[in-house]
């Protein structure tokens, strides 16, 4: 047994598992009350659900990137409610850079450069958040609100100024990896592979980011110091760790994840930009951080869950992928808003401690004052 906390791998997402369990139980109950449809239900699970995996991953990707940004910030003790603003900004920058550079360097390169500029823009905006909340010691929630307002105003302003009037159009959508047809025809596994692998570079990089961050957070020097600074900054300070530097670094690097999430929206999911197109993804990411107990893998699990719920409002309502029998009728009768609300409701329930308590890092959101004498 080593002294370092690797055991967390196992325990992180038990709440996500609990929720999944409830869903499975509900499905089973639906089957039992619907014996004649049992065959149809099994058929639905095996044949009609897997094709929706791809959509789930697409919904989950920006949420997960937002959540990784949240984990990076909050593990070091900085609350960042401005992720929504970071993503909106980077989505716009990726679009704009792609649109301008497309004719110059050719489309795939323009899209990639767009991603790069988006990440850079998000990191710059994160630097502002870091400066306000670490150096200036402004209230971190206010600083986050500033980011959101500036991002909303700034993107709408330049969108109108540069895009709407000139009819500028986006660059090519980043190409998706194509996988052999033989693999995709395997029942259940095939669509799963397709969902995970038939994605663009940003979505594909997500899983690397999640696993890498998880390992680094709990086994590397950077991770140890990050967690120490988020839990007890004074203790970290007294052993010579520069608390401000650790926080700056984490907030700015976290911004890179938000940047990838934003760029995903305008270079991989679509090639256009609309005002306010993030539509709350940054906030759902914040919810995923809490739901995933401030761990990358847990947050990723939560993002998948929220992505599944959000995509359900599309997939469960179209006949080809709707569940059979009364369950199908029930789902079809539910308003789309129901699925939209679910992630938020689930988060409130989790925060209320109904399904185990969510305990944030002890110094989360509290500015560190080096000179404080207490």
């Amino acid at each position, binding site marked *: 047994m080593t002294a370092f906390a690797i055991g967390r791998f196992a325990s992180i997402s038990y709440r996500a598992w609990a929720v999944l369990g409830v869903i499975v139980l509900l499905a089973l109950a639906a089957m039992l009350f619907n014996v004649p449809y049992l065959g149809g239900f099994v058929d639905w699970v095996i044949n009609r659900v897997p094709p929706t995996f791809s959509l789930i991953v697409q919904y989950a990707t920006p949420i997960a990137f937002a959540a990784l940004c949240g984990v990076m910030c909050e593990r070091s003790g900085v609350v960042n409610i401005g992720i929504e603003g970071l993503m909106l900004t980077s989505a716009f920058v990726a679009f704009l850079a792609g649109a301008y550079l497309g004719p110059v360097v050719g489309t795939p390169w323009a899209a990639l450069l767009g991603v790069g500029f988006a990440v850079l823009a998000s990191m710059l905006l994160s630097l502002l958040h870091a400066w306000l909340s670490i150096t200036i010691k402004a209230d971190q929630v206010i600083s986050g609100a500033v980011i959101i307002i500036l991002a909303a105003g700034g993107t709408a302003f330049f969108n*109108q100024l540069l895009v709407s009037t000139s009819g500028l159009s986006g660059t090519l959508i980043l190409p998706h990896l194509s996988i052999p047809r033989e693999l995709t025809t395997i029942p259940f596994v095939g669509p799963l592979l397709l969902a995970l692998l038939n994605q663009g570079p940003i979505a594909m990089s997500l899983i690397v980011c999640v696993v890498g961050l998880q390992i680094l957070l709990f086994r590397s020097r950077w991770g140890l110091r990050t967690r120490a600074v988020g839990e007890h900054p004074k203790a970290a300070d007294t052993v010579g760790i520069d608390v401000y530097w650790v926080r700056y670094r984490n907030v700015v690097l976290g911004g890179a994840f938000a940047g990838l999430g934003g760029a995903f929206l305008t270079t991989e999911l679509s090639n256009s930009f609309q005002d306010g197109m993030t539509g709350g993804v940054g906030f759902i990411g914040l919810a995923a951080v809490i739901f995933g107990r401030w761990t990358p893998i847990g947050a990723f699990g939560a993002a998948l869950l929220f992505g599944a719920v959000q995509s359900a409002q599309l997939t469960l309502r179209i006949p080809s992928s709707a569940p059979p029998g009364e369950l199908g009728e029930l789902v079809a009768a539910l308003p789309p808003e129901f699925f939209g609300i679910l992630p938020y409701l689930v988060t409130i329930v989790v*925060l209320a401690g109904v399904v185990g308590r969510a305990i944030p890092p002890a110094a989360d959101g509290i500015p560190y004052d080096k000179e404080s004498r207490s």
Partner: protein
Amino acid sequence: MTTERGAAGGMSVDPTTLLGGSGGLGRQALVTSIAVLAGLLVGAALIILSGALQPGGTLDFGLPLVAYRALLDGALLCEEGFQEAGILCEEGGILDLRALGNTLNASTPLIMTGLAVAFGFRAGLFNIGAQGQFLLGAFASTLIGANLVGVPFPTAAAIAILAGALGGALWGFIPGALKAWRGAHEVVTTIMLNFVAALGLRYLANGPFRDPGATFSRTPDIQPGAVLPTPIDGSPMHWGIVVAVGVAVAVWFLLFKTTLGFEIRTVGANPFAARYAGIRPRLITILTMTLAGSMAGVGGAAEGLGITKNYPAEYGTSYGFDGIAVALLGRAHPFGVVGAALLFGVLRAGAGSMQRQTDIPIDIITIVQGMILLFVAAEVVIRRLLPAARARRATATAAA
């Protein structure tokens, strides 16, 4: 000073730093003015930039003056050579009552949502939920107002406003109760509840409560008795502003002159000492959030009964979010909130005129608001600059 907050830990509001603990009233006003000025300067830079970016545009350093003048024209002043409905803009008149009415109408919901956020601050609570509370207030008041058939004016409007207050109060009570009883942090729960409100009400206005005769999804129009009238001929100003200013005065009295206000402020400053003093912080938390919610709810009611007259399913408003900026700019003081709301009302009401006259996108107003908030948040920096500036001036005078 160590500020320990509730058991939930996590993100915290420290009213002492938030409310600009140090410095007198005059100094605070000075710092705030500098923040506003700096925000407008950044706006000016963007105006110059946008002039240059427009097709065939050039760098025009006079453009900000033109644009801000157009903004003031649209919000307050008699426009020269642009007097379409200038009945109230008589010869030599300065203030345009029609424009002024629009400005006050835009300020009304901002005052109420600003108060909702500021009131929470005083009890150490960060009420990000004014947006949802505002929507609940708008929905409840218009729904009740639509059903008050045959009820005459003051009664119907009063009942509808009360319904709005109750709707907002419910949306404030939930996070308050979750915080008090379960330790759920209000910043996160209110953010989540904003989305629940927006989506849930969209469903209700689109489904069960949709007006079947309307061309787009919305609830039925309110009855004439529930409409907030416009008392001045030719001015669109409705009674909402009077209600809002009245509530602001009442909130000021409640916070600073009553025993309950003392208790709320004590909980905000030190919840542990509050318990020791015989105050029940959980009760105060719930009460504060409920009252705050009702304020935002009244804001929604004023907007619903005075302007929209119904609840549109796709209600694209940001009055609730703007309330955060208003509360902070107003230093969480009720009168400061009124001032800040009037300023933001001017920006909002005049932005259309500015866009018409100079082709500058209306969203520049949001950027200016964000920059003002940024400078307020970074006021430490401004404070640090102040004595330096004075010292420089002193040396300059000495040298002269």
